[in-house]
């Protein structure tokens, strides 16, 4: 009889019921612990992963173990664990272990030795027999104040550095990048890396092998080249050299041209050609002999030749920069003009342009007092362009009318957009688009500034009057009820 059963259930076994309930609670929460999702409600997607990180994690074929060797309470601890949590949401292959250097000394020492970690506060990524560690300075940005206060955390670039570390351990492909030499290039890409050392260091860190290429008398670009970069030349290319690059490109090679406006030796009031004009023109791009001036986007008053790119295309190279409003700094740049290509196989696409107020100054004689006139090229001007080859998808080319974007000086004075942009271009050209960099997340600070009158007003309204309304209401209700 049911009443008998019910009696047995209800009377004696309330402890059994509690046990069952606890078991159910544990099962539900265990499942929730293992399978979870997070939603970012901030309008700026502060806590969301970028599409390429998500794509990488979704397509992950091998397990990646992550060891967080940070003390609990470290400035970056929370950010790191939150980021790794969102990695876990995307892929079951990510396994995270937190090892506190203080409390788990034994395990910590073992891991340090095993993965040859030399920096104490690091995050180690391991897949198969490959490992790579990321030290704290690679995922945190600090702001150092002058007055001896402890540094404040300014930005978090963990997503990018962790993603790169994971690429290194799951996909250790090393592209070979050749820098042309022999044309009076501004930068040395041999041992010293003079002039562009930050950029060179980043490329090596991303796993690239960097070589130089003497183009004089060269018949053919070496077969191991993933990319040829021409940056900051002063002596024009010869027809033969131009032909070598052209063949290389059309046979499926990648070219990255950073060509400044060039001036005749001696009298620096006249432009000269770079020797690559015909090559560019063939694909629909005209290298214009001018100096771009953009007063609207200039960094300093009266120095309008140094300015930010204003209009970014939504191409994946610039997409994240555009979305995060990350500025790219140009200085002494030339403009590019998109024209009809010689063959419809090629297509030119604008990546970055100036503002409408900018113009391309063609008169070098009056640089002391520049102004826009009829002979100048009118804005908006194209500064960087991408060339597609419809016949051969492997052929890739990006042209920028300025080589200073990768120089140490610009990178130091800019806000990090230049490096990211240049690296994105390189990753695109070496066909490793999924490694395109993500700008660091800025840590937002509040921007409330109140006058003392406003503060006092707030105090009176919020602390005194507002609660008092409820006290009065209470007294009123009380007496009304009693009546």
């Amino acid at each position, binding site marked *: 009889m049911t009443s008998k059963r019910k009696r047995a259930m209800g009377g004696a076994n309330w402890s059994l019921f509690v046990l069952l309930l606890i078991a159910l609670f544990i099962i539900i929460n265990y499942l929730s612990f293992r399978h979870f999702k997070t939603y970012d409600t901030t309008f700026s997607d502060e806590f969301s992963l970028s599409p390429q990180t998500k794509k990488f994690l979704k397509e992950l074929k091998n397990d990646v173990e992550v060891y967080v060797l940070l003390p609990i309470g470290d400035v970056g601890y929370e950010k790191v664990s939150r980021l790794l949590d969102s990695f876990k949401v995307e892929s079951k292959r990510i396994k995270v272990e937190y090892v506190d250097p203080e409390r788990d000394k034994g395990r910590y020492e073992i891991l340090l030795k095993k993965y040859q970690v030399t920096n104490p506060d690091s995050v180690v990524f391991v897949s198969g027999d490959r490992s790579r560690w990321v030290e704290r300075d690679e995922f945190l940005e600090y702001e150092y104040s002058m007055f001896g206060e402890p540094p404040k955390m300014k930005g978090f670039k963990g997503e990018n550095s962790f993603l790169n570390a994971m690429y290194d351990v799951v996909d250790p492909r090393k592209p070979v990048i050749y820098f042309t030499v022999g044309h009076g290039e501004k930068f040395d890409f041999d041992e010293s890396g003079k002039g562009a050392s930050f950029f060179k260091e980043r490329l090596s860190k991303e796993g690239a092998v960097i070589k130089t290429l003497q183009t004089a008398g060269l018949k053919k670009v070496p077969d191991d080249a993933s990319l040829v970069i021409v940056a900051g030349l002063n002596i024009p290319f010869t027809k033969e050299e131009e032909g070598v690059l052209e063949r290389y490109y059309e046979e499926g090679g990648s070219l990255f041209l950073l060509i400044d406006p060039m001036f005749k030796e001696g009298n620096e009031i006249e432009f000269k050609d770079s020797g690559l004009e015909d090559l560019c023109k063939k694909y629909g791009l005209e290298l214009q002999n001018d100096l771009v001036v953009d007063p609207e986007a200039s960094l300093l008053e009266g120095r309008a030749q140094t300015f930010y790119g204003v209009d970014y295309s939504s191409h994946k190279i610039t997409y994240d920069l555009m979305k995060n409003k990350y500025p790219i700094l140009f200085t002494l740049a030339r403009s590019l003009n998109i024209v009809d290509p010689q063959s419809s196989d090629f297509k030119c696409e604008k990546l970055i342009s100036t503002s409408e107020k900018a113009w391309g100054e063609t008169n070098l004689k009056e640089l002391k007092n520049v102004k826009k006139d009829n002979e100048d090229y009118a804005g908006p001007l194209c500064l960087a362009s991408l060339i597609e080859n419809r016949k051969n998808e492997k052929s890739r080319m990006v042209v920028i009318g300025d080589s200073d974007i990768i120089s140490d000086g610009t990178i130091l004075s800019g806000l990090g957009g230049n490096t990211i942009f240049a690296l994105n271009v390189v990753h695109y050209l070496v066909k490793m688009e999924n490694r395109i960099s993500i700008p660091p997340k800025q840590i937002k600070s509040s921007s409330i500034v109140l006058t003392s009158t406003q503060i006092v007003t707030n105090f009176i309204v919020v602390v005194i009057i507002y609660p008092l309304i*409820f006290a009065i209401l209470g007294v009123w209700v009380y007496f009304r009820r009693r009546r």
Partner: protein
Amino acid sequence: MNKLLAITKKELLHYFYSPMAYVVLWAFLLINGFLFYVILSALSKTASPPVSPLSIIFGGSFFFYLLTIVITVVVTMRLGAEERKQGTFETLLTSPISDFEIVMGKFLAAFIFYVVAWLFTLIYVFIVKAYQKDLDFGPIISSYLGTLLLGMFFISIGLFSSMISKNQIVSAVIATLIMTMLLGITFLEFISSGVTREIFHYFDILTIMDNFSKGIVDSRNLIYLLSGTAFFIALSEKSLEARRWQ
């Protein structure tokens, strides 16, 4: 559903006909208002920490937990204990209404009171919005969501305590103890490491509220708070049935 709402209505009448509700609202808004004022003036100084003033009100300070405990305990402590003391359980439990409806009706009433109290804090949002044009509403919405979910959880704890207690004081003590223990998981998390730590981390209400206040809605947080609520509601319902067998 009608019967459930009848219970809710009766409990709400109790709340708003007694001066206690207004004392609670007054104290709640006084403390929160003061907190808000302190934060506002601190943030107006230069070299302010990079935080949103509202995230401190929602789980960012000790006062948030104090207020949440106090308000949930006060609104729940009489729900069962008073019925028992007055003997009104006898008329209630012999009426054609299920134990579940009784428990849910009372739960809903306490929750409505809690929601009303927090709704009055929307004034702070409007004030901040007036001074900060680019205010991101995402974290504010998730903060309120988290606060309401935590409230549900704590109310279910208070309700259960009240159902098993002979008087309101005992109920308040039991509820406060359970809530403090749950908050104490933060401490356990702090002193542990490895997998244990991860488990404690999962149940850590401070972390959970931190997530909500920053704009992160995590399914784990939702499920913990909701399943916790369901757990104590089920216990409350069972305790009513157990009364009949005793």
